[in-house]
């Protein structure tokens, strides 16, 4: 092997980023710290319902539901490179599907009165099926064309939601039957746990956590192994992916379906939190918010989707809540900039800033900071031509 290659090797070997599939060196202290941190985080999350007021729990739940949906979108847009502006449509299918399947048969709107857990599963499958119906179209279109074609889904969806009164309840939506798992109902009935009253939000909190963790692990599993590699290959070089044996069209279709199922699950969870589904919610703004989430958080990664979802959903709530206390923000009706406006400025700007200054999104922030610190410590010594750019 040429010595040029050897030189290069020196630079890279020292501090390869250790990608997912690369050889894993022996455990370093950092490797042990991380599981500890995760454990701690898990514990804190488990305890939150005992301390946080319902407002924050609800905000957290919205964020969890959004995170599930964003993970799905990130599989599609981030990892496979298929721009979708129609995610809200699949959220709506999940939400309304659940209501229809679980709904009370005698309540004026169509309801099959199924056990809620079954309805939940069916709603997710229904969303997947809807994605499946659209996937042949998705498979044919590229880039911006696909993005705008999915926009049609939003408009079709809204049209149906407003018009199919029997199914959807029309403009004012329909109420959401509470989830019930083996006789335990996630409703507002107060249950005392350690003398803390548990109502719907507290109960749903745990459901949300479980679904989010499972959804995240599942997506991570996909991304880090065979299907994930194929998806990335399709994004980066479609022709090469095909030549390497990846059935491109089938994969694109499959990812579309999976992404829709994530959206469906997020929709069900949202419906359970709202306790009512309203059509106006599932509009273009929502779809754009999901895109903002994955860009702010980081395209193509599970962590990015989760971080972005929390950023986009929690910021407006915080700003609204503390509108009186924040500088520059004024309470409604007093003139000046309203909190709703501030949060829109903020997350609009965050999208721009994330792309321009933090490519890779919020998930990359720790790595970028660490690299910067390391560089500062090391000065600007030449570390060879092959140093991995951060």
């Amino acid at each position, binding site marked *: *092997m040429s010595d040029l290659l050897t030189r290069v090797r020196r630079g890279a070997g020292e501090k390869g980023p250790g990608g997912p599939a690369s050889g894993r060196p022996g455990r370093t202290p950092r490797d042990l710290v991380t599981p500890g941190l995760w454990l701690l985080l898990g514990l804190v999350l488990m305890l939150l319902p005992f301390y946080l007021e319902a407002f924050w729990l609800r905000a957290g739940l919205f964020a969890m539901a959004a995170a599930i949906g964003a993970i799905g979108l990130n599989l599609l847009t981030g990892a496979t490179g298929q721009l979708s502006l129609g995610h809200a449509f699949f959220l709506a299918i999940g939400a309304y599907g659940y209501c229809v399947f679980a709904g009370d048969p005698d309540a004026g709107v169509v309801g099959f009165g199924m056990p809620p857990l079954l309805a939940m599963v069916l709603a997710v499958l229904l969303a997947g099926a809807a994605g499946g119906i659209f996937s042949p179209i998705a498979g044919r279109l590229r880039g911006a064309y696909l993005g705008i074609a999915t926009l049609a889904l939003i408009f079709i969806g809204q049209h149906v939601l407003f018009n199919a009164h029997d199914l959807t309840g029309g403009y004012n939506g329909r109420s959401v039957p509470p989830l019930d798992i083996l006789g335990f109902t996630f409703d507002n009935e107060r249950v005392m746990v350690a003398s803390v009253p548990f109502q719907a939000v507290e109960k749903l909190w745990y459901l949300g956590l479980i679904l989010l963790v499972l959804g995240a692990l599942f997506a991570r599993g996909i991304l880090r192994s065979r299907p994930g590699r194929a998806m990335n290959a399709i994004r980066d070089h479609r022709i090469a992916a095909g030549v390497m044996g990846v059935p491109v069209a089938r994969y694109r279709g499959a990812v579309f379906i999976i992404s829709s199922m994530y959206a469906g699950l997020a929709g069900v969870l949202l419906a359970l939190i709202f306790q009512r589904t309203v059509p106006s919610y599932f509009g273009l703004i929502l779809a754009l918010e999901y895109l903002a989430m994955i860009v702010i958080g980081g395209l193509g990664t599970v962590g990015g989707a989760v971080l972005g979802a929390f950023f986009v959903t929690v910021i407006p709530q915080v700003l609204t809540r503390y509108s009186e206390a924040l500088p520059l923000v004024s309470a409604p009706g007093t003139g000046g900039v309203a909190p709703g406006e501030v949060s829109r400025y903020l997350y609009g700007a965050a999208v721009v800033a994330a792309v321009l200054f933090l490519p890779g999104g919020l998930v990359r922030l720790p790595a970028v900071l660490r690299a910067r610190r390391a560089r500062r410590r090391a000065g600007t010594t*030449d570390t060879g031509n092959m140093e991995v750019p951060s």
Partner: protein
Amino acid sequence: MEAAILRVRGLAAGYGPVHALSSVSLEVPDGAVTAVLGGNGAGKSTLLRAVSGTLRFQGGAITGGTIEFAGERLDGRNAAQIVAAGVVQVPEGRQVFARMSVADNLRAGALGARHGRRGEQEARDRVLGLFPVLAERAHQRAGLLSGGEQQMLAMGRALMARPRLLLLDEPSLGLAPMMAARIADTVREINDQGTAVLLVEQNAALALGLASRAVVLENGTVALSGTADELAASDEVRRRYLGVGDEEAAADAEAGIRAEHDHSDGRPTLRRWVA
């Protein structure tokens, strides 16, 4: 040595944290061909990009040193100004405008130079004379040309600007022997018409055959420099870049394999995989 048209002094450049060039100095005499040799990743393309002001499109920047062209500083100017000054680069890997027609690619080549319609027409005639295939394919989309055709287009496009200094980044890459020879002829022809050429080539034999002077870049710095003949005679260059002179390997594929095997890094034999 004639007056240098391009003077690079103490040039340092990098891509963010990557340092690609450090204190590179060289001079390109007017009206002559100067070759830059070096292995993969030695910084050859970086040098050309620094001169043509296009480093920033790869996320890089000049971090030190000066570049002077015909007595004027180039560093700090933008690419368009550099083209206007008469320095034009043919980028590595051709980079034709894939979705534009061949004719429009050539028109694009004339954008930066201000020679008027007449000048453009003359330039076009010259280019089409050099590469008749471009006339045949005038309306085809450039991205659909074969590799060699794209290389011709890239050269032709650069010549449309009628440069005083032409920067060529690996023009023979992927060319059939005859085509490579033709490119070599073209370089010589252009040079004869008074255009100075800074030629980056992996194919050292080709480069040294064309050039009057050459430098060898290694690891981002100038390792050797001298006249082409001096370098061609140097053992180091012969062994590393001309692929000759290593008595054992002797530019022989089989010997290459043996050499690899004799190496102590012990590259294993690949066995057939059984599922």
